[in-house]
């Protein structure tokens, strides 16, 4: 019997091919971070001069912010694909084939991880080309990209859960529109923690997007606090596992509802 890994590879490959065939999607996915990077980079260039900001170059500060925000905003649409495949009957067709059930869920996580890893590398390279300095070197960048991948797994699983639960595009669109900006701005994506109001700092501490940013930034600094990186990364991983488990439960509920 073919292993789950092989089935997952086939199912991931199928979706990768689909993405590659939609050049508009690829272009938008690459252009959007560039816009963030240079829009926010120019707009907020002077904030580093604020006392207490704690960074010397805003671009250095911004790159992790754009990497994580892009991971968030790309992965939270994953549920749309699941929904479309349910509506078109593609899901049911796979379910009547001798396919490992878990390969369907795995493929969604694998696809998001791959896409977001590539996107993150591109943003890091663009930042570097624009003059950003990565004091933490390669290990720091690896942590940043790993954090972006965890965010992608977390929020794609969440989005898949919403998709299978609500079975409505509008619900996904509504929830995403509602969540994207608060999750981004109630974090240190674009603004240093020291300059946030007190209440906002408390909220940010509970925001997984912020954990990813803090872990990434800390690892990318000249003197990483690895214990903190471990705690924040671990928390992120636990949450990703939790939303994945939730999406598996929803997937089983879907199979029962057919």
């Amino acid at each position, binding site marked *: 019997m*073919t292993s789950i890994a092989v*089935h997952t590879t086939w199912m991931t490959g199928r979706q990768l091919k689909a993405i590659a065939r939609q050049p508009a999607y690829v272009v938008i996915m690459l252009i959007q971070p560039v816009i963030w990077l240079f829009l926010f980079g120019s707009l907020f260039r002077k904030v580093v001069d604020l006392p207490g900001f704690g960074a010397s170059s805003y671009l250095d500060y911004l790159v992790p912010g754009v990497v994580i925000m892009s991971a968030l905003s790309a992965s939270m649409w994953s549920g749309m694909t699941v929904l479309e495949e349910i509506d078109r009957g593609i899901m*049911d067709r796979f379910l009547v084939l001798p396919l490992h059930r878990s390969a369907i869920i795995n493929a969604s996580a694998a696809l998001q991880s791959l896409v977001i890893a590539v996107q993150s590398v591109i943003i890091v390279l663009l930042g570097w080309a624009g003059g950003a300095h990565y004091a933490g070197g390669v290990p720091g960048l690896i942590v940043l990209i790993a954090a972006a991948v965890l965010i992608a797994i977390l929020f794609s699983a969440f989005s898949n859960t919403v998709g299978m639960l609500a079975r409505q595009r509008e619900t996904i669109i509504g929830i995403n529109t509602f969540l994207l900006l608060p999750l981004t701005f109630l974090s240190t994506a674009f603004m240093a923690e020291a300059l946030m109001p007190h209440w906002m700092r408390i909220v940010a501490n509970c925001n997984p997007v912020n954990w990813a940013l803090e872990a990434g930034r800390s690892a990318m600094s000249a003197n990483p606090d690895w214990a903190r990186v471990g705690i924040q990364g671990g928390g992120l991983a636990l949450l990703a596992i939790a939303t994945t488990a939730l999406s598996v439960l929803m997937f089983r509920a879907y199979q029962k509802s057919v």
Partner: protein
Amino acid sequence: MTMDTARPAPGRTIVGTSPAIEARDLVKTYPKDIRALDGLSFAVPAGTVFALLGPNGAGKSTTVKILTTLAQADSGTAIVAGLDVRAKPAQVRHAIGVVAQRSGADPVATGRENVLLSGRIQGLRGRELARRADELLDRFGLAGAAGRRVRTYSGGMQRRLDVAMGLVHRPTVLFLDEPTAGLDPESRSAMWEEIGRLSAAEGLTILLTTHYLEEADRLASQLAIVDRGRIVAEGTPDELKGELHGDAVHLELAGHPAPEHVLAALAPLAVIREIRVEGNSLSARADEGATAIPSVLAALETADVPVRAATVARPSLDDVYLRYAGRRFAEADQSPAVPALSGGSR
């Protein structure tokens, strides 16, 4: 999320006389107390084409979903290709091919990629898989379009691709759920020819669901009429039609006369029986339709019931349906017993 390791060899035929499909007392209830299946039973001999005929919402698709391991019955047993669908779903999935009501082909992938992926999941590899895929694409007239994305296919092409995908691993039992729904007449008759060829040449057992009477009549060697989650009649098309003795007489009445009044007017006549009046339509049976009509018309005229049109026909499956389900097929189809739920058909 487990998979059984053993599976039947592709191309295996069912030995002996045991049916290829057997459903016993299937019951399925959906949320909000919608009873889709209410003790449905039937058996399909190996190598035959069997049609489940009924209006939308009768329970045909639910039956197919249970037999193809997609859904689970609340109670009852289902055996497909000698395997219990509840106990051995993974093995059943190897033994069957499924063409569902909704296409299920990936629109962004090419036709060939769709067939290849299905074959791969079914355990075919390498050159054998490639040869089988090309053979099927060729046979279903898709060789030229094989490299095009399915999104660009016409409805008929998509349907043929669905069948090719279902056949790639040479299943012993093929399920066709409304295979011609939504197709234009030309594509429909092409599909009928193909289904006829399949059953003749490959020794496949085919379970077909349809709400087209003529489709069941033309393709199936055996058929069962499903109404409100139960089988109400079963047999060969000719047997079922034969049970209705004589011709069908249909009258179109002018206006909407009271049914009791019409029935009272016709009661003394011995030439017709099984009279039903619904709105302005009257149907009945007669041993000799042509000779019965004049006396029927005379009786109605005496009773002051004007008639707009009269027809006499040999019995059709529609008449069979009327007899067993108690209503005309088209009416049942318009007002399904089970309301369609959002997100899919039952």
